[in-house]
């Protein structure tokens, strides 16, 4: 064997931003789906979301619209959990040195960032929202509450957008600051602080996606699932735009980070 070659092995031929992407993606997905993480999260959030809804559905006054509004509110807790789960994705790896180790391999920084964004986005959405939502759909069906599968999927997708807001925000903060405390504190402060900004402002923020704001008694998620007209699409547009901005800033900053 000479230096740089290993008998019987084919060298990987990747270049540009895709360099190292396949290996990093495999590892990123494996950290969710080949460990206990996925079923622990899925079990936990299925129990939390469906437990709260079960109390309403099978309790005294099962009301369709209220059930779906409550579903939206419960996904807010999942969104906060996303920020907690994600706090370590960048800051933890910067502090422990695993980021420097991985980036000493022939891989690009965008590939590293994608491997934090995509597997975590899929993992959190699937385990903290999609699986609990499927169970919830079965539960409301059993309770005889009529709901269109399409509308239900649309409402769940908007709840997922709220999750992505906190995921990308946490990811971006991880590239900007070195303190894990700051990375987790900022999303939490924002999550609960939105309601203090006044109903006209919070009505266009991610908060309005999952929690009724002002005089409205239904959130965007609740309205979509119920089939009632939306007061405004502004929170959807603002949240989607914020996700894009956070992601762009995270990639830009990560490219300049010294490890």
């Amino acid at each position, binding site marked *: *064997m*000479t*230096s*740089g*070659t*290993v008998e*019987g*092995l*084919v*060298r*990987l*031929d990747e*270049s540009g931003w895709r*360099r*190292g992407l*396949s*290996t990093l993606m*495999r*590892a990123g997905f494996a*950290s969710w789906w080949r*460990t206990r993480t996925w079923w622990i999260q899925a079990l936990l959030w299925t129990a939390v979301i469906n437990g709260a809804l079960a109390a309403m559905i099978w309790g005294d006054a099962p009301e369709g619209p209220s059930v779906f509004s409550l579903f939206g509110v419960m996904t807010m807790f999942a969104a906060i959990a996303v920020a907690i789960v994600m706090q370590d994705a960048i800051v933890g790896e910067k502090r*422990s*040195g*695993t980021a*420097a*180790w991985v*980036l*000493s*391999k*022939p*891989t*690009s920084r965008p590939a590293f960032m994608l491997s934090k964004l995509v597997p975590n986005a899929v993992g959190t959405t699937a385990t903290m929202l999609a699986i609990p939502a499927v169970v919830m759909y079965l539960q409301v069906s059993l309770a005889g509450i009529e709901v269109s599968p399409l509308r239900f999927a649309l409402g769940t997708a908007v709840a997922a957008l709220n999750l992505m807001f906190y995921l990308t925000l946490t990811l971006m903060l991880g590239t900007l600051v070195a303190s894990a405390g700051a990375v987790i504190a900022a999303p939490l402060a924002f999550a609960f602080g939105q309601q203090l900004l006044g109903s006209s402002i919070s009505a266009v923020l991610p908060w309005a996606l999952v929690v009724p704001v002002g005089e409205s008694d239904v959130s965007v998620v609740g309205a979509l699932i119920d089939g009632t007209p939306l007061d405004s699409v502004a929170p959807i547009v603002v949240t989607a735009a914020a996700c894009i901005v956070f992601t762009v800033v995270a990639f830009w900053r990560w490219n300049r980070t*010294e*490890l």
Partner: protein
Amino acid sequence: MSTDDVVVATRGLTKTYDGVDVVRQLDLRVPRHSIFGFLGPNGAGKTTTMKMLLGLIRPTGGTGTIVGLDIVRDSPDIRARIGYLPQEPRFYEHMTSRETLRFAAGFFFAGPREGIDARVAHMIDLVGLSRVADRPVKSLSGGERQRLGIAQAQIHAPELLILDEPAAALDPLGRRDVLAILERFRETSTVVYSTHILDDVQRVSDTVCILNQGEIAAQGPIGDVLASGSGLVYSVEVEGDVARARDALLGQPWVDEVQTSIRGTAARLRVTVSDADAAESQLQRVLLADDALVVREFGRLTTDLEGIFIDLVEGGRDDD
């Protein structure tokens, strides 16, 4: 030394943080197939230099090449050809040692799977981790973690290995094993490793660079560096008329000083010279010209690396 014989070359490599030069005007030259000991006290700039070579930190000034590739422009291509062991290596804790090596191999090899597994098994065997290969990384001891670090750095048989303090956290047996592993890599790779354990460097390195306060204090083959520490000094043990021998030496234009210490019937002369060639060819002859004098021992003095290191580092502090 031709360009082909040099694996790492830097010119004026500088890194500045907040106006302070952490690494200043570094001109490194690492010969191919050498074990290059990178020495310096804590904060000398060793890790910063290594990270600049790896592309993890961007130089403020200067240039550098590894295997002829630019350390800034061609960083991913360079990283495909080098292996790196960080100081206090940390890996993904949920992975086992075997999975960690498979993960590392994934950056270099497309397959086949059996071939990668065989390579992983070979590296596990080489660094003596077979017993714990399928245990999660978080359960490994410091020494085992270090061995795993060396294995992952060497998984793709790189042309250059950069190891940051590979033996710092190890007990004497662990250090011995790591040094033995490094020596095995000499045939196929060039090894650059930082350390402050001078004894290790003297045992395995053939080239050294002493870094102090971000600047090179000494660099070159270890023999030259060791010799430079004592200046041009020869030690001669003689029996006979020592005073006459001393006068004969002081009569030579290339002899600066002769110190004498008497040991029983013999005497040891410490001869400081200004011309090594003249001393090598004439010093013994001058003494042997006196038939009554017996020369029992003759040789050039070298000091150990620790003495040189302390002189250079403390000299640097005195300059401040």
